[in-house]
Each structure stands twice: as C-alpha cells, then as structure tokens.
C-alpha cells in the first residue's frame, strides 16, 4: 500500500468509531446510519488530498459527515426527527474529548465478558440479530419500554466498566 493510503487508513481506522458515532447521533435509523457512514468513508477517501494534516482528522471527518447527514436529510425529505444542524455543529466539538477508541475497544471486550448471560443475550438480539425493540419485546414477552430500560442498564454498566478500565490503564474517556 502506498503512503497516502496507509496514512489515510491509519487516521480513518483510529477515528472510524467516533465518526460512526457522530453519524448515529444525527440519524436514528440504523440502516440510514450505515448508508451515510459508508458514503462518508468514501468521500473522506476521495477528498483525502484536500485534508490539511495540520488539522485534526476527526474534526475534518465530522465536517464531511455532517454535510452528508444534511444531504441525506434533503434527499429523504423528512426523516424521523433528527437533531438540528445547529445542534450537530455544537455536538461535534464534544467528540474531540471521546478519547482512544482503540483502548475503549479493548476495555469493552473485557467488560463484555463480565456481563451476565441474560444481558449478553439481550445485546446479541439487539446488535447481532439487529432486532427492533418491538420485535425483541415480543420475543421475550416484555414491553418495549422495559426492553429499552434493560438495554439502558446494560449500556450504563458497560460505560462504567469501560471508564474504570480506561482510568486504570491511564487512558482518557
């Protein structure tokens, strides 16, 4: 692989989770997030020549992601309510503080092992099988709200666990 490609990959892979997170903050439908994220990845690659290395890659990528989100919104007419452009502009700065996705990834892996079987099963339904909450609720005989709360509890415990691990490892969250 040539140098620009390697450099692009290094930057992109280190920020891709953040970029995807940013896109998912703007759009609620996961399929739309997938689509937009892919488009963002390709645009970043195409425009990599324009990237000024003196600036943070993440901020540059988020700018492009934001434009893609707005473009998507224009294309789709009215998407299910999404955050306003102004809010997204404000939010963008906060992604600078979400540190080291590489170490977060490691921490998440360790924290996943600590979850109960039931929690892991719920997460697998949601993220592996990509079931909608309604469908999950039907499968396990609970209300949508209950499933949402259960997932929320699991996310919170993962968040705390990751935070603990990162602090222990000297990372920043």
């Amino acid at each position, binding site marked *: 692989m040539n140098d620009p490609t390697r450099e692009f990959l290094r930057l992109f892979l280190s920020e891709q*989770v953040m970029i995807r997170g940013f896109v998912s903050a703007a759009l609620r*439908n996961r*399929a739309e997030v997938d689509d937009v994220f892919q488009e963002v*990845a390709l645009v970043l*690659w195409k425009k990599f*020549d324009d990237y000024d290395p003196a600036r943070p890659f993440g901020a540059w990528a988020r700018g492009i992601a934001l434009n893609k989100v707005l473009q998507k919104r224009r294309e789709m007419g009215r998407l299910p309510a999404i955050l306003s452009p102004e809010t*997204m502009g404000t939010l963008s700065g906060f992604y600078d503080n979400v540190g080291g*996705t590489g170490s977060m990834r490691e921490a998440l892996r360790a924290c996943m092992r600590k979850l109960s079987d039931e929690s892991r099963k719920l997460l697998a339904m949601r993220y592996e*099988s990509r079931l909608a909450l309604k469908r999950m609720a039907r499968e396990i005989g609970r209300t949508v709200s209950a499933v*949402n709360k259960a997932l929320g509890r699991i996310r919170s415990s993962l968040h705390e666990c990751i935070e603990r691990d990162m602090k222990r490892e000297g990372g920043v969250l």
Partner: protein
Amino acid sequence: MSRDGRALIDRWLDGIASDDDVVAIESRIASDSNFAREFAAATVEESLIQEHFGQESSGTAFKKLLQERPGGQRAGSSLRISKGREDRSRRAPRVRRVYGTWLSVAACLAIIVGALAYNDYQRRRFPVRLMALVKSTSANVEVSRNGRTIIAVVGMKIMPGDAIRTGARQRISLFYEGENTELDLSPHASIVLERADSGKTNVGKRFRLDAGQVKAVVDAQPAGLPMIVDTPHAEAVVKGTVFSLVVDKSSARLAVTKGVVEFIRKSDGMSIEVGPGYYAAAARGEEFLAQKASNYDLLRELIAKAENAKTYSDLSSLADLAQRAYRHELALESRIHVAKLFWLGVALNITEHVKVDRQAEDLRFVLDMAARAASRDTAIENSLPSEEMRMLIDSYDSARSLLHDRYYDRYHDESRELMQALEKQGGTDAGDAVAFGLVCVWFYERGLPAFAQLLCESGAAEVKAQPGQVYLKRVLIPLLRERIAAERELESTIDLNSIRTENGVWRIADGRVSGIDGAAGKILRQTNPRLRSAIATLSMLSFDEAVFTGQVRFLDVLRKDGKSKIVLGLDGSLPDGRSAVVGYGLSRNSAVPHDERWKRWMWFRLHCIRENGSWILNWEIWGEGVQPYGLTTTSLDDLIEPKYLRPPYPRHPRWPFVTVGGAPFDFRGDPAFALRTEHASAEFRALGVRVIKPKGGGK
C-alpha cells in the same frame, strides 16, 4: 449525569425517541455540556458495541478493499457491507406512556418551559440584532465558541464572542434576522463578533476583521448604534451601506458602493468619510483620503506591458503592476477585469496542462478553470490572493505565445489585429473579447462545440464595451454556430435513443424505440485530424461500477441543464471494420425500492465499432428483471463536484483504465456479481435474448 438524561440517550440509541425527546435532547446539548459529552460518548460506545457483535464496520471493509487494490486507488464505490436489514424500514415508534397521562403532560410542560427559558436566556444575553445566522457556508468552516471549535452549518446562530476563520477556498455568509444586513467572508478571512462590554445592552454590531475580506450589505442601523468593523489598521463606522473591506498585514482597504462609511485610521486617529464610488486605504506610505475609483489607465498599462513582455524581468515588473491593479480591482469591485485575469490563467492552463490525447484529468482541470472563469460572480467572489494573481500575470505572455505557436495561428492573428484596431477606438474590453474568443475556439477544436458556444455567449455577456461585443457577437458566435450546425449533420451517425436487438445483442443504431427512459447520446466525428480521436457523449447511464479500457483515451463528465453527460474520447487508430471493447460495468436501477436494489443490477459492456469510417457504440445489457429500456439516469454529481475536478487526481496504476462512479476493482470475480449475472442471464434467456458474457468474466 441525571437518570432522566441517561434515559433520553437510551431512547435515542434504541430508536424510540419521540419528537419531544428530540426537543429535550437539543435543548440539553445546547445548555448542558456534561449532557453533550455523555451523548457523544454514548454514540461512540454504541458504535463499538455494534462492532463487537460482528457487524463488520464500513471502515474495516473499506480497509480490506483498499488493501486488495494495488496502489490503493482512490475512487468512489458503492460498497455495501451491511448485514441483515431487519430494521431498515423501521420507523421509531413513539415511547409508550408508562407513567400515565399526567406525568407525560408534566414532562412535556417541563421540556417546553425549559426550551422557552433557554431561548429567553439567549435573548437576554444577546439582543437579537447582535446574533447573526449562517446563510450559506463552505464545508468545515470553523467557529470558535468558548474555547471549543464547532463546524458552521446553515441556519446556525453566530453569537457575540464567536470567531470565524475561513481557510483556502472556504467562504461563509451571515445574515441578521429582521433586517437586510449580510456579511460575506472571503477565503483566508478571520472575523470575531465582538462582545459588548460587561453590562452594556444598548450596543451596536461590532466585528474585528483580522485578515481577509468582508463584503457587507448593511441595513440602516438604529440611531446611535452604527455597525463598527475594527481592523488592525483602521476602523469603519457603518450606518447603512454596501461596502467591501480588505485587510492584510500592512493595510486595510475600503471601497464603498452605496451610502457613506466613516473610516478611521488607527495610527493617528484621522477620520475620513468614504462615499459611493470611492475607496480609501489605511496603509503606510499611502495617502489617507477618499479617491475616485478608477483603474482604467492601470489596466491599459498592464495589458500593454504584457503584450510586450519578453524577459523574466519584464514579467516581474508585470507582477508589481498586477498587485496594484488587484488592489484597485477590489476597491472598485470592477468585475470585468478580474474575470479577464482569470481568462488569462485559463489560457495558460490550456496550453500547459492539456496536450492532445491527454487523459481525462487534464480536460477536467481545464473545464474547471473555464467554468470558474466563465462565471463572472465566481471570479469576483474568489478575490484571488496576490500569489495567484501574480501567477496569472506571469503566465500571460507565455500563454499568448504558446497559443500562437501551437494552436491558434489563424485566430490569434485575427484577434491580435482586431484588438489593435479596437484599442485605437479606446476599448480595453477588446482584450477580454480576444481572451474569450481564443478559449472558445480552443474548446471548439477539442470537440466540444456546444460548450465553446456557451462560453462564447457567456463572454459576450461579460464584455460590456461595444467593440468587444461586436467581435464576439458578430464574428465569433455566428462562426461557431455555423460550424456547430455543420457538425451536427455528422453527429447523426448514432443515436442512443435507438436500441434494437441484432443476433441477440442489444445494439444501438438508427430508429427510435419508445419507452427509453432518459437515454441520449451520440458519437461525434472528430473534425480535427490532429486529434485522431472521436468523442462520444453518453447521458443515459448511472454507473455503479464502470471500467473503460483500451480505446478510451480520455473521459469526462459534463453537466448542463441539470443533466450529466459522459464524454468518452475514443482512440482514432481503430481500423475500419474492427471493434473493441471500450468499457464494461455494473449499473443499477435506482427507481426500485432501496432494499431491493441488489436485484436490479445490470451488467453492461460497451463496444466501439468502426464501420465505413464512422463510429458505432454497441451496448450489451442484462440484469434480473430489467426491461431492455429500464436504465434510469441518476446524478453523477459526485464526479463533477468542483473539488474533484482539481488536480492532483487519483490515477489508476493501470491507466488508461478509468472509472466512473465506482472503484476500479475487478467485480467480475465477485461471487455476488456471478449470482447477479446468473439471474440476469436467465431473465434474458426467458425473453429469447442471447446473452453474451465477457471473455474471462463471470461464471
């Protein structure tokens, strides 16, 4: 973070946030940085969790794709890597009301009260007249607010205390609600909306322009509260006017189009009033007074020197002159002359960057330059930085001589004589007319007659003086029209609106078949024998993957009237009676529902055939469920976005393979493709159509 804040985020992540939730989230992001931080972190963690559960991220797939490709060619792709789409069409249901009606109503009221309070808080902090809104902006313009950097987007509020910095090629326009006041910032500008002194509420708009240019249309301001633009060298006090202010390291230059601006030099506090049609400069060594904006003589001198420049030192002196002219241009806001200098740059770039039979990138570059030059407004808006202006001026002489030597002997001589004759009548616009004319002719000779005519007409509109208009309107445009009309007769060799089958092959030939959606195209017979190539224009295709090979010498995408057109330059060395595959690829029908699109892949191959000296394009198309005329046109905007038209362009190591709208990888080896082809073949066999597969491709 509070429990309800976390619950809000969870509802968002699970796709069940209601509209009220969205209002609450927006309000909290704006007012509570802890919440915003948590929200950002939660979305990133969500992405990590998804990745953990085996949903291969696009990034990973992207990496694989790049690694598979030698050289890591950069190009677009329609890579689709998502797994099941169980929730693709899902729309988030509203949250169930588990807490009872009264609690929901109370929650809504709380949200509304919160939002109103937030708005009121904003209003109390900053009177509405001090808050600007973003009217339009380039991508990634940065706004610094309270130590954080945020990206400007249309509709965003710019508060007192915010700083905006534009980079290269970036622009941003701001406006004020309730009044007709607008500010346009040029590239490389830095502006701060200054805060009022603590406790002061009865204040006017106040900016600090540290660098770059701001053009402003300012509505009448409240009595005693003028708009003040502060610069390191001077201060402009504006009560309601149209003006342009440019700041660099050593000067601040103000030009007023309408109204009166009080201009105060900081070094000695001297104040002058600058009225419409006047300009003034606060700069060391320059007299501080309002001067009538007139640069005619300067321009005349510049043109004369450029004509006579023979040596490098001649060119260097031209650069100084150009600097002076440039400052005058901005002061006067004289559009025509800035546009003219662009044209000179175009001429240079044509001669330097485009050689006969060079690749598409070069042509794109020229088109980009020409498009910029053709747009009077763009030329002005770009307000060329001095270095670029210097380059254009430096290039003037060499451009003219190259044009003369290589391509335009006849036209140049004609133009030169005409220009001299016209200048005797006192019209410097003759130079513009000549520049336009040369470029138009060049494009005409490159096989783009309609484009040449368009440019020429645009030039005629640009040139104001009668002599220049006479040259363009009475001489050149009629000449082009005549040539174009003559050439159209030759273009009728083939019409892509006409498709018929012949021996099982879909063939494009004479005759019209109804029901073709948006298909159009033609092959032009190239009239310039030096080019030894033909130009084909296709405007019917939407490519997901397309590879053009062998006989294609260059390729470009043009857009006119909202339609995209692909231009293929075909090598003229193909002997008569022979054919060659010039392209193949995948297309898909975007008219079908999104989640069924994979069924709608169409495989096509494009042959170029020489018959009796003329060119024929022959298409083979097959795809599952695709009607023979089912190709639909979608936008190729990505390819013709100006940013992509600038060098350096991604170049495939195996040039002349070039791609349109897709990555240059060999999709024929893709199992999914084989599946599609199989479906497609069956479909076409059912229709009694013989399907021809490419040699060595497919399964």
